[in-house]
């Protein structure tokens, strides 16, 4: 599974962090950072994170 966040679209709402904290984090500067190739076991959480993104900036491939 590959996770792609369109950083031109992302506005650092951080909603994804609550759905999949293992994959998405807000750093000390308030910007989103994420793991691009998370373990398959996290798929449900990552899909939920993509659903709740206010800007719909998260794409899952594979």
């Amino acid at each position, binding site marked *: 599974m590959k996770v792609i966040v369109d950083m031109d679209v992302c*506005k*650092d*709402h*951080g*909603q994804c*962090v*609550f759905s999949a904290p293992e994959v998405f984090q*807000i750093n*000390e500067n*308030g910007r989103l950072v994420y793991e691009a190739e998370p373990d398959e076991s996290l798929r449900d959480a990552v*899909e939920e994170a*993509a*659903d*709740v993104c*206010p*800007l*719909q900036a998260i*794409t899952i491939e594979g």
Partner: protein
Amino acid sequence: MGQRIVIAGASMGGLRAAERLRASGYTGEIVAVGDETHMPYNRPPLSKEALASEVTHEAVAFRLRPAVADVTWRLGVPIASADLEARAVRLADGAELAYDGLVIATGMRPRRLPTPGPTAGRHVVRTLEDACALRSELGPDARVLVIGAGFIGCEVAATARLLGADVTVVAPEAVPMRRPLGDDLGAALQRRHEQQGVRFLLGRTVAAFLGEDRVTGAELSDGTRLDAGVVVEAVGSASNTEWLDGNGLDLSDGVLCDNALRVEGRPGVVAVGDVARFPNPRYDGVARRIEHWSIPTDTAKRAAVTLMTDLGLSGHDPAPFAPLPTFWSDQYDLRIQSFGAPALGADDIRVLEGDLDGEVVVGYHTDGALVGVVLIGLPSAVARYRAELMRNSVAA
């Protein structure tokens, strides 16, 4: 299997319902019916970034997961009526669709003012077409009158101002966004808007629109006359439930549901999104509709499980449904985020961090307990307050 679920409504709630039904293991037919011609799209940008740039379906369309590739979309056709006894809906084009399960996801439509005067030049913001029509009239030369000082009205005011328009907001309340933010935070946000050049004429309403073929201005309840070539009516919304009339349902404010999103007394019929009125045990158990962006996703997840149970396809889920309502608003460079139910804590509002004219966290309390939080900025504080709300606001 041969089962069919009809989803009435092809916006976010309808899409999420289809996704969750597939995720719950439903393999039967799904037909989603929507009155708009577009595949589901994300509405919040229509008063914010999409309105500020070019409004296209591509820019706001939801991605379709492979799991919902076999859903049948009947778009551009409103549902005319439903017979819940016969388990069938009738579409406006005369087609009849029988169902085993029904998802009500028809959402809301903007209220329109009954105010006399010309109608050309008067806008609402709900659909893509609405936003395109408004966008085509916004620019540095536009004189814009926004009626309504809730979130949509204030977002449109901010976006129009960023596009260089002359903007006046008229509303009956004394403070913008008063419900649910409260007087102090609402007044602080009004000051931010005024610093950007937006004019507020509060405590009054529009008595008449002026002009012949199209709007050229408005006369207010106090006799004030304003020039305005573009009017935006942001005065709340009404539930799209007329098609359910005649079935004995409580449609007094959306569709009354139980805590599992099952329409009261109607197994096999669920409602999702802002049209669903359901009790939330996180608070006082009173059934309410919630017009927040997080609600279609949350309710679809629960409603899909309920429908699977009613169709005999999965077991009963006894867990109470207690979503944490969440919404945000972008106005200028301000990020306003709300978690929980600020409106329920309106009698005990406290600044928890920061100050009202800068970055701030405002807490809303019931019986001393935090039930809602609104943040302006302070992204690093979000997780802490959200965790507190998740922990302590489920009523015993």
